[in-house]
């Protein structure tokens, strides 16, 4: 199928873009188009107006400092994945981006577009939530910062107002004595994952495990982060504690069945990945050195 007709606007300044969004109630932002174009072609979306923001200047910068990584709305997945400073400051970014779609999609799709798209099967909304990052939304009414925890309200639904667009996002640096890992299982490389898990494991000065958190893909309506620390109360990264962590995770997730996997299978995968990814995040502390 082909997209339904729409009007097309291509603002060349942010103010113009925001004015267009304010003027047209049924308008959508077009960034990389890697999620929106399929929706238009399948006629799952039929906005009256598309506001193509690709020629708005100043939105394609990645800035990293010791506190975190900020990236603009037009930073492509591939550019963020390649950015050496961003990878050093927050290694989970690059590791997660490698799992997003295929190289050709990553060279066009934007990471902020993925955050706006609010898909609980997508890696980056979950990573933003796990890391405790935020996004910046702008409209003719002004600018506001939205914490990841407040951004996602339902399936494919964020709390953005129709006249708002995201101008950028920020994630904090990986804290000291913290390891990060991500892994997922998908039917083919680059497909949306059946289940994915990312984890942050922090240890104290003695090396005892202090905090274990994990983010889950495709097992809930909105990006889900579960605190697994209680399973590691004795500070050990032991098989017994990992099994206990799987129990904690299993109680928190609510996978659905679809044509690709039953709910039980997803639950099983979530357990396998929890064990694998938490152990990998912990192991990365020793293999990569503590910074």
């Amino acid at each position, binding site marked *: 199928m082909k997209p339904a007709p729409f009007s*097309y606007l291509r603002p060349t300044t942010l103010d113009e873009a925001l004015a267009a969004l304010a003027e047209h109630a049924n308008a959508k932002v077009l960034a990389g188009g890697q999620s929106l174009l399929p929706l238009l072609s399948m006629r799952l979306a039929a906005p009256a107006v598309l506001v193509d923001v690709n020629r708005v200047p100043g939105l394609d910068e990645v800035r990293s400092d010791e506190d975190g990584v900020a990236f603009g709305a037009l930073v492509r997945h591939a550019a963020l994945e390649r950015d050496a400073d961003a990878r050093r400051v927050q290694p989970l970014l690059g590791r997660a981006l490698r799992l997003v779609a295929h190289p050709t999609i990553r060279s066009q799709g934007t990471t902020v577009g993925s955050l706006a798209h609010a898909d609980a099967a997508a890696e980056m909304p979950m990573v933003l939530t796990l890391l405790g990052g935020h996004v910046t939304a702008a409209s003719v009414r002004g600018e506001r910062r939205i914490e990841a925890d407040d951004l996602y309200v339902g399936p494919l639904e964020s709390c953005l107002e129709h006249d708002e667009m995201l101008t950028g996002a920020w994630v904090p640096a990986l804290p000291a004595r913290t390891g990060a890992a991500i892994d997922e299982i998908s039917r083919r490389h680059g497909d949306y994952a059946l289940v994915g898990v990312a984890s942050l494991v922090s240890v104290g000065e003695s090396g005892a495990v202090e905090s274990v958190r994990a983010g889950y893909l495709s097992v809930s309506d909105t990006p889900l982060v579960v605190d697994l620390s209680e399973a590691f109360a004795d500070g050990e990264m032991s098989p017994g504690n990992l099994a206990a962590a799987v129990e904690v995770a299993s109680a928190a997730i609510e996978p659905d069945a679809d044509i690709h996997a039953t709910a039980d299978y997803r639950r099983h995968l979530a357990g396998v990945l929890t064990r694998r990814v938490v152990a990998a995040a912990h192991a990365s502390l020793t293999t990569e050195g503590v910074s």
Partner: protein
Amino acid sequence: MTDTAHETHEVDLVVNGAAHRIDVPARKLLSDAIRQDCGLTGTHVGCEHGVCGACTVLVDGTPARSCLMLAVSADGRDVTTVEGLTEPGDRLSPVQQAFKECHGLQCGYCTPGMVMSAIDLCTHHPKSSETEVRALLDGNMCRCTGYQNIVKAVMMGGEAMASGQPIKTAETA
């Protein structure tokens, strides 16, 4: 607001070095504009939602799914399609020659997309490992070959581009 159903846009594209000025509705996909308005049917269209990779072209030198870009968004951009790879004297480019030598195609439906995806890798990372080639092509589907010969072809094409040596063909060998 203009009448959406009849709104058209004048779009300037440089396709394989030739300038095209086309008049298209906003909803026209770049893939359709290349095929219908520019008359270049080497770019194939399979799924039209970004999954199969058959429609891959280079936009400003970067691989892109032409079914996931509006023609109007590509205004002023430089597009390379599979037709643009042909070398002087109507010779196939090294990557295309390698597909031929390695039997990297059967029905040929996926081939333009495979070749356009491979061009980027062969140009920028000609010495890629098999794992890297497979990772690059993981977004391109082929229903015929079973992929082995496509991977071989991309590796051969990359080597030929790196060394500048022509590929030994059945005719030249």
